[in-house]
């Protein structure tokens, strides 16, 4: 596979599409984020967001087929870390309708699951599905380094 130029200074990770491997992805991406000297609490948020994105890819995008793969691309743009989680697109992950809010879910108006995307959007600067290649779902989220004086957040 030839890598796009933007990936030249980034990292690529390919994992079996099996629950549990998101833990390894989390440790890999956290180590990558430390190169940008992200503060510890931002790294914890990043790890949570990445776990949710990987679990979505494994459970939904790849429909729990262990023969498939999940790809993760990470790169820095200035002080911003960009992460893409790509599955093989067995089924779409992006919700068709706006998800219920937490209050409605707790009130029993919907499943208590399905809060991953909401959680990710709270933990990151930007998050959403972008056009992927080869028909896979590509979920992208970004984290900008927060400085001690609050600049950059």
């Amino acid at each position, binding site marked *: *596979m030839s*890598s796009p130029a933007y990936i*030249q*200074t*980034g*990292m*690529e*990770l*390919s*994992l*079996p599409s*099996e629950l*549990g*491997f998101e*833990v*390894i992805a*989390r*440790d*890999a991406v*956290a*180590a*990558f984020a*430390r*190169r940008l000297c992200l503060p510890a609490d931002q790294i914890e948020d990043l790890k949570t967001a990445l776990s949710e994105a990987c679990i979505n890819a494994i459970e939904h995008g790849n429909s729990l087929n262990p*023969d498939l*793969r999940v*790809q993760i691309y990470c790169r820095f743009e200035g002080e911003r870390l960009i992460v893409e989680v790509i599955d093989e697109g067995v089924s779409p992950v992006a919700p068709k309708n706006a998800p219920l809010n937490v209050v409605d879910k707790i009130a029993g108006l919907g499943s208590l699951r399905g809060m991953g995307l909401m959680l990710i959007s709270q933990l990151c600067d930007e998050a959403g599905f972008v056009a992927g290649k080869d028909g896979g779902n590509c979920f992208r989220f970004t984290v900008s380094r927060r400085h001690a004086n609050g600049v950059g957040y």
Partner: protein
Amino acid sequence: MSDETPQHDPLEKVIELRLPSKLGYERVAMDTASSLARRMGFAADRIESLKTAISEAVTNAMEHGNQQDAAMKVVVLLTAREDELIVSVADQGRKPLDQDCTTGSPKIEDALERDDKGGWGIWLIRELMDEVEFTTAPSGGNQVRMVIHLEQ
């Protein structure tokens, strides 16, 4: 991820990591491998040995094989089997590894007289891992294949 990835036994679990040849990024390989090794049940001291060996192999690939060109990749393949973890580290081979370097045992007395105190990496890898083999990667670069056995 790549055309170079060989076909694997379905019971094997393979993680592929591609890193820029930039010193410091070997830590990503170390943390990824230690996370996998923990999950496989390796003891803490074996995980430390694994991390040191990977650090040496990846920094060799960055510094020597890829001549510190950040755009050149180091490919780390981690293959988890029931009773062992196989780590393969490949560079893009701008500078082929001198095979004589892969077998010798450096002497500390000689190193004390040299200005450059380096050159211990391959010896260290051989000391720390159960099996070590230097080959040429499918891409034409240098490749080191290291195996660490899981002792139950």
